[in-house]
């Protein structure tokens, strides 16, 4: 096991797949010579050369369009969209083209393409560079949606995404890029669609994603230590496919569900999970399902304002405590 940062795990994951398969290519803005604005792709140009690792103009539609055309004709492109907020400028290619092409053509094409993008808040970048947009992708049939919380998952799930054969939107959490963690040596692969129970407790189930996983884990510690509440914490890891089995099993066991989302409230993934649980294990619930989310507002920039907006450990603790009282 080596200790890698989340950022280095990105490069390691891409490199692993590029070594394995010469049809894996990588493109994006400032990704090659500069190694990415988050330095998450340093070294790839040097190892794989300028035909496989390509710098692009500020043309997100062309970047993803090119990735799509290449995916339909034998390549397995990984495309970077620098910030997830910029998915909006190429949303047509993602939501209307990549996601629908295979279905519309009755299976004539496959679409093995990974869109990597830096997601989420906490860097004081303001409303246009801090959004958590997993739910945009989740609304679109035909997209897989992955969002790792740990370096090992970055590498393993990236491998699975590249090999999946479908369009995958891979959300990297920008506030986690410098986080360190153990990553298995050698080839590492984690299947999509398997949530991970990071902590098992009998009192309630907390479901989280990406940065919120770490907040949920910290909150679970506090809940145990200070309030004697023993929480299960589930890291979803992917939203599509969604590991409803793990969720339903844990909720049935604990009787209580709290979701923690970084995205603004309306139509977040927590709502979907809440609706699935209410529909499918209503009689196992011992009380309301509570969603903790960022309020339904654009994200403010100043540190004090941003910190007061995103779900915090204190808010999770307080919500769970009040709910279980």
């Amino acid at each position, binding site marked *: 096991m080596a200790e890698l940062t989340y950022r280095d795990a990105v490069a390691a994951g891409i490199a692993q797949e590029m070594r394995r398969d010469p049809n894996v*290519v990588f493109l994006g803005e400032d990704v090659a010579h500069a190694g990415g604005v988050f330095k998450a792709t340093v070294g790839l140009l040097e190892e794989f050369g300028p*035909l496989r690792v*390509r710098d*692009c*103009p500020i*043309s*997100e*539609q*062309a*970047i*993803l*369009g*090119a*990735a*799509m*055309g*290449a*995916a*339909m*004709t*034998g*390549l397995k*492109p990984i495309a970077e969209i620098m910030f997830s907020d910029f998915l909006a400028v190429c949303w*047509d*290619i993602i939501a*209307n*083209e990549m996601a629908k*092409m*295979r*279905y*519309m*053509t*009755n*299976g*004539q*094409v*496959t*679409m*093995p393409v990974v869109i990597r993008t830096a997601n989420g808040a906490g860097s004081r970048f303001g409303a246009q560079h801090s959004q958590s947009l997993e739910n945009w992708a989740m609304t679109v*049939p*035909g997209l897989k949606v992955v969002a790792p919380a740990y370096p090992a998952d970055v590498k393993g799930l990236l491998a699975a995404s590249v090999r*999946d*054969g*479908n369009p995958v939107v891979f959300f990297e959490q920008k506030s986690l890029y410098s986080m360190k963690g153990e990553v298995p040596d050698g080839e590492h692969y984690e299947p999509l*669609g398997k949530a991970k129970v990071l902590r098992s407790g009998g009192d309630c189930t907390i479901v989280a994603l990406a940065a919120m996983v770490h907040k949920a884990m910290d909150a679970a510690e506090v809940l145990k230590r200070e309030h004697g509440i023993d929480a299960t914490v589930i890291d979803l890891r992917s939203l*599509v*496919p*969604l*590991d*409803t*089995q793990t969720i339903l099993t844990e909720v049935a066991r604990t009787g209580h569900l709290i979701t923690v989302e970084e995205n603004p409230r309306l139509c977040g993934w927590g709502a979907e999970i809440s609706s*699935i649980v209410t529909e499918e294990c209503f009689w196992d619930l011992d009380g309301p399902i509570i969603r903790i989310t960022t309020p339904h507002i654009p994200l403010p920039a100043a540190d004090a304002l941003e910190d007061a907006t995103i779900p915090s450990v204190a808010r999770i603790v307080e919500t769970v405590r009040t709910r279980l009282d």
Partner: protein
Amino acid sequence: MSAIPKAKKPAFEIGRETRLELFRLQLELRLCEKRAFDLFLQNLIKGTSHLSLGQEAIAAAFGVAMKADDYTFCTYRGHAHTLARGASMSGVLGELMGRECGLLAGKGGSMHLTDVEKGVMGSYAIIGAHLPIAAGAAWSAQYRGTKQVSVCFFGDGTTNIGAFHEALNFAVIWKLPVVFVCENNFYMEYTPIRSVTAVDAPAGDRAGAYGLPSIIVDGNDADIMYETAMAAIDKARAGDGPSLIEARTYRHSGHSRADPAKYRPAGELEEWLKKDPIPTYRERLLRLGFSEGTLKGIEDDTQRKVDEATAIAKASPTPSLDLIDKDVWADGSTAWRN
């Protein structure tokens, strides 16, 4: 409206076989499209449909000029371009009619005709999207070293959307083997293109913005189109990068099935009917010594094929409902959860 530029003398002699094939193919596109129109009137085609009656010379010329493994990318107005690559007529008509024999078994509909085996990599119904996608297929060919060429058809109105600009720049800087073919039929849906475009030649006057030469040709002349196609395809195949072609033409029918095309000034259609690519080409062939019998034979034969295809499509059942739950994902499933 800008005048169509004079036909230039072809740089090479087009062979007699090729000429016959250009005639035959234009005719196939015309007769099949007319049949589609009849099928609307019989209410056998649901949804929308966009005919390219009058624009056949372009699709036909490229169809003849392209190699079997080259890629075609078309729009919702893509019946002709799909057929021109050898897709089955019953597959096209069947798809328009929502039948099981349709190219997409009814799942896609008239705006999304695709036949990957024939190199037809899709028809795209959102303006502009397929330009970068076509560039991507060209990139793939370049990377894989296959010498395949990607050809992308679109309309004059499409030159005003952002994706056009991004795709052209991208294709040039990566020197991709892609040919962008703007079929300037002078209208975006119901609006005259000149009223919404800053330049006279929507594609031709913009080629320079990508360091490309301006190529404006008579899209109703199959020989000129063939020569133009060959030149651009050869350039692409040789590794010399993309081309942007503006082919001027006219659609004889409305924009889509719902459109009676009342917005056209009186006499405009009549002027263009005089330049109908098919009768004019027929006359040229006669002048070049092809016999009336040969041409008549092709005509009868093609009409027969269209009739046969129509019969097949009409006889084909509606698609099985099982298809609904198939092929969102590469593994054939539609599951989003365990």
